[in-house]
């Protein structure tokens, strides 16, 4: 039994496996299948200051080895989260992070400020990379200036772990990562979904109501892995890797590339028990290869 624990800049995880925002609901959706307390942590749905209905149906298109989504941050708003959802999950002994999204800097700040008051939420994941909302979202994550501004402002009010989630839809993800680091991020997570689209040739119309959407699943893994490796080389803060992870082998690749922890997203839809299988698989790998702790393989390549 290897030591799987890892501390990412103050955030202590019992193992490096988290779940990705928007793919794991509020955790409770998975309670029938796994013991949530086995997870290193889970990141709940994208939360905004005000209630959002999200984009019209259809919001999903299956692709070979992946899917496109255009959910558009449907959620009931941060106040609803605090009043109705937080009380039902706060006693789960795992790290629950809230994915904070917004369309203006002041929205991000106001949302982060409210989450800061929640005792059992040790951190937020600042989503400056959602491709599915018209205003804001990804717009913040695609230029260094706007990424710096929003991270800076949130940093002023948010006192706990600040993870910043990066978009792959940029020319240099390293520059954006450095901008986030320079503005006070405690860690960066990457990647959010890649912009894509699908067309129905029978109707000769786009499949998604929004025409474009975000690609996720195993098809994005090589791109995600490359970006994690590039970012881990240039930043000093921990990197959390995600994009297409479906197995322990996939997760180990990210750790070897320099990620200190990983998130599992789309794979939860096909196998709701995938997270615990990945945790067990990482342990087996370490045992079989003579490593006593997971920290020993981070960035080994």
């Amino acid at each position, binding site marked *: 039994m290897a030591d799987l624990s890892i501390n990412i800049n103050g955030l202590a995880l019992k193992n490096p496996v988290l779940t990705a925002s*928007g*793919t*794991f*609901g509020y955790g409770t*959706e*998975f309670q*029938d*299948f796994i013991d949530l307390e086995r997870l290193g942590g889970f990141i709940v*749905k994208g939360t905004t200051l005000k209630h959002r*209905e*999200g984009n*019209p*149906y*259809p*919001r*999903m298109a*299956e*692709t*070979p*080895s*992946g*899917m496109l*989504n255009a*959910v558009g941050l*449907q959620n009931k708003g941060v106040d609803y989260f605090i009043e109705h959802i937080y009380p039902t999950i706060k006693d789960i002994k795992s790290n629950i992070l809230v994915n904070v999204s917004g369309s203006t800097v002041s929205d991000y700040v106001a949302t982060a400020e409210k989450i800061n008051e929640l005792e059992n939420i040790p951190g937020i994941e600042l989503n400056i990379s959602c491709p599915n909302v018209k205003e804001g979202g990804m717009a913040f994550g695609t230029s260094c200036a706007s990424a710096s501004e929003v991270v800076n402002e949130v940093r002023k009010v948010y006192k706990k772990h600040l993870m910043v989630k990066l978009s792959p839809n940029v020319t240099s993800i390293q520059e954006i990562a450095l901008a986030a680091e320079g503005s006070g991020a405690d860690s960066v997570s990457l990647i959010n979904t890649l912009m894509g689209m699908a067309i129905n040739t029978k109707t000769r119309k786009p499949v998604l109501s929004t025409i474009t959407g975000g690609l996720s*699943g*195993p098809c994005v893994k090589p791109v995600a892995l490359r970006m994690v490796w590039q970012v881990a080389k240039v930043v000093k803060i921990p990197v959390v890797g995600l994009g297409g992870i479906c197995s322990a082998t996939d997760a180990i690749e990210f750790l070897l590339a320099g990620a200190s922890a990983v998130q599992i997203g*789309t794979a*939860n*839809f*096909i*196998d*709701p*028990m995938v997270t615990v299988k990945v945790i067990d698989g990482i342990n087996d790998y370490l045992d079989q290869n003579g490593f006593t702790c997971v920290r020993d393989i981070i960035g080994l390549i």
Partner: protein
Amino acid sequence: MKKIIDFTVKENKRLNDDTILLVLYSSELPEIKPGQFVNVRVDHSPSTFLRRPISVHDVDVENGLLYLFIKIVGCGTSTLGEIEPGQKLNIILPLGNNFTIPSSGRPLLIGGGCGVAPMLHLSREMKARGLSPVVLIGTRTDKDILRKEEFEKYASVYYTTEDGSFGEKGYVTQHSILNESFDHIFCCGPEVMMRAVAGYANSKNIECEVSLENTMACGIGACLCCVTDTKEGHKCVCTEGPIFNIKDLKWQI
């Protein structure tokens, strides 16, 4: 409680050119209510990435059997069409809400195409509770009239075919049985058909529930991909449906 179970395929029966009946066995078969669905993992089909949602056609609780009635439309369902007895099928179940079985009155169950799937379980359950369900099945031609004897065990069954090869000619909404009076309507089929039925139910002031088939990714309420627009905003078809009262939907009927 939802479960992930490896079912054993007992039988894979071709009902016609493009429809199969899968009979699956598990010793852990959970309680399933009429209208609920299951999410099937399709192995050995490289282009089928997500699970496939399929209604529960029938259950045999005593013998641990689950029946799925599947129309072959693409790669995933074609692959299911090839599965052989003895093979395993990984399924998450039971999912979604269920039809509201009334305590009295005369129910009409309308199924179009593969929308007949959930109606067998529903009519069995209604008969068991002392109701006398009437089932109306609408298809294109007589070759698509399937599971006739099974339905006739639990209900008085009427038929329409678009080409008139069996039952009355036309669409379900044109069948003469609709001149009789009903207290509840339950409907599953192509959306155009369900909208027409909803229009009929609405005009007669009959309670009507429909079963929606929105495309899904997770099937358990985690991704919010499957939503339908309701009077209370977007609702998840996989958890708050697939059964909706037409009064709650925003259909123009």
